């Protein structure tokens, strides 16, 4: 079942076209990796899924993106509502300069939840899901900026999980982390896909190979190849994909 589907997607920044006619189906409860060299438009693509590009002044989009059958770029669709169902984790860990607790409780709070015990419960559950609870449970009032980089990124994942999204978008979530911290996040994602759909952008093909079920290869704004990860890494069809995977460019 495709939970997200793009149809003839063109994206422009001013006069510069960054995505060209992208047609892609994201399967439910799977990890889909979007890989490609820098500047290929992979971050732009993932930021279209929760309408994060709306805040960029000269951003323009043509085509459609269906979330559970409904075009999220239709008139009358509220981007704020879309973002509560499609969460996002960014390249650089970006916790708020607040306590760990406040960070995780932020999402439910802006949605109007005030009940203290319910908030406590959500914070604990989200931190557990993000494999962070054991490390921080005695220090929930500590400023999030005092955590290590890997902990901060897991906190950002916990924060995104707290609003109970159906899709989690991750934009190169491990590129600022060391291998151990990265591995931990990869394990976490494999666990999380049981309950939600994950789309991860990576410039690292081996990360895509390790964790994803489907892989999309993007080059210069075009979707070159999209298939099950096993297939794309063993028998890539397109010569560009072969070149990329053999490290000829990147």
């Amino acid at each position, binding site marked *: 079942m495709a939970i997200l589907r793009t149809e003839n997607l063109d994206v422009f920044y001013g006069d510069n076209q960054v995505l060209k006619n992208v047609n892609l189906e994201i399967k439910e409860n799977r990890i889909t990796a979007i890989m490609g060299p820098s500047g290929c438009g992979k971050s732009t693509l993932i930021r279209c899924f929760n309408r994060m590009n709306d805040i960029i002044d000269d951003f323009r989009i043509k085509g459609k993106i269906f979330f559970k059958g409904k075009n999220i770029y239709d008139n009358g669709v509220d981007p704020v509502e879309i973002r509560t169902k499609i969460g996002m984790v960014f390249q650089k860990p970006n916790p708020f300069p607040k306590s760990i607790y406040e960070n995780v409780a932020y*999402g439910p709070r802006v949605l109007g939840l005030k009940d203290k015990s319910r908030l406590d419960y959500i914070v604990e559950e989200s931190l557990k899901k993000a494999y962070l609870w054991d490390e921080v449970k005695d220090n929930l009032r500590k400023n999030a900026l005092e955590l290590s980089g890997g902990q901060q990124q897991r906190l950002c994942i916990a924060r995104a999980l707290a609003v109970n999204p159906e899709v989690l978008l991750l934009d190169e979530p491990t590129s600022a982390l060391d291998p151990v911290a990265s591995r931990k996040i990869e394990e976490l994602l494999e666990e999380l896909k049981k309950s939600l759909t994950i789309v991860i952008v990576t410039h690292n093909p081996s990360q895509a190979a390790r964790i994803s079920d489907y892989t999309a290869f993007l080059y210069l704004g075009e979707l070159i190849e999209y298939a099950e990860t096993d297939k794309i890494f063993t028998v890539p069809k397109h010569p560009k994909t072969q070149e990329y995977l053999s490290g000829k460019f990147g």
Partner: protein
Amino acid sequence: MERILKRKKIYEKIFIILSLFFLSVSLLTLFSLIVDVLIDGLPRLSLKFITSYPSRKPEGAGILSALLGSIYVMIVMILFIVPVGIGAGIYLEEYAPRNFVTNMIEVNIANLAGVPSIIYGLLGLEIFVRFFNLGRSVLAGALTLGLLVLPIVIMATREAIRLVPNSIKEASLALGATKWQTIKHEVLPISLPGILTGIILAVSRAIGETAPLITIGALTYIAFLPKTPLSPFTVLPIQIFNWVSRPQKAFHHNAAAGIIVLLILTFLLNIIAIILRNYYTKKYKL
């Protein structure tokens, strides 16, 4: 070759000496002004000077009505410039569309900061005193001074908001917060030190202003305290100005003492600005 090098070094030395000379000229001027004021005013400075009303006899005269008038005007002015200045700054930085009108507004706000203060006095006289019929009151004075320093607050707010990392705004929006929630919960708390600094700078600019208040007709001699925002009032700089323009030498000493009080007030405001800024910078360190 060696001659050229030597000449270059001489030029360098001349330049350093010239810079030092100009620096010391400005510092010495300031220093001698302060010393002069202290010599004239310190003997007059006492609790009685601060708690007495102005008087015809210089030795009995004090600054109570002027000091409290200044404080009163500042408080009313802060109530005006905080919501208006911060609101305008947020709108221009976060909501205004990037177009010709916005650019015109921005350029003009920057220009307003350079308009002579007496022009604001005339504006205040026409709008607040006459049109809104507020009279020569605390409220009219506070609004006039508020207009004068509003550009400072607006620009400080915009600068402070611009320094909030984009990643923080994105994090909040991605969690389903609206733009206003993002501004309220993240942008404003993080930019608070910069905004506070702007407000206090605005107050310390306004507290020394004389011309606009004289223009709107603030009184120079007041032997009572302003009770409501619509009471007539005077402020420290006007009282000082009044004493300086008297022929008797003894009043000049009163003026010097008044200047010391005004200096201390401004100095305190700046200290508070620094303390607040340090406190919030630490609290929201990024």
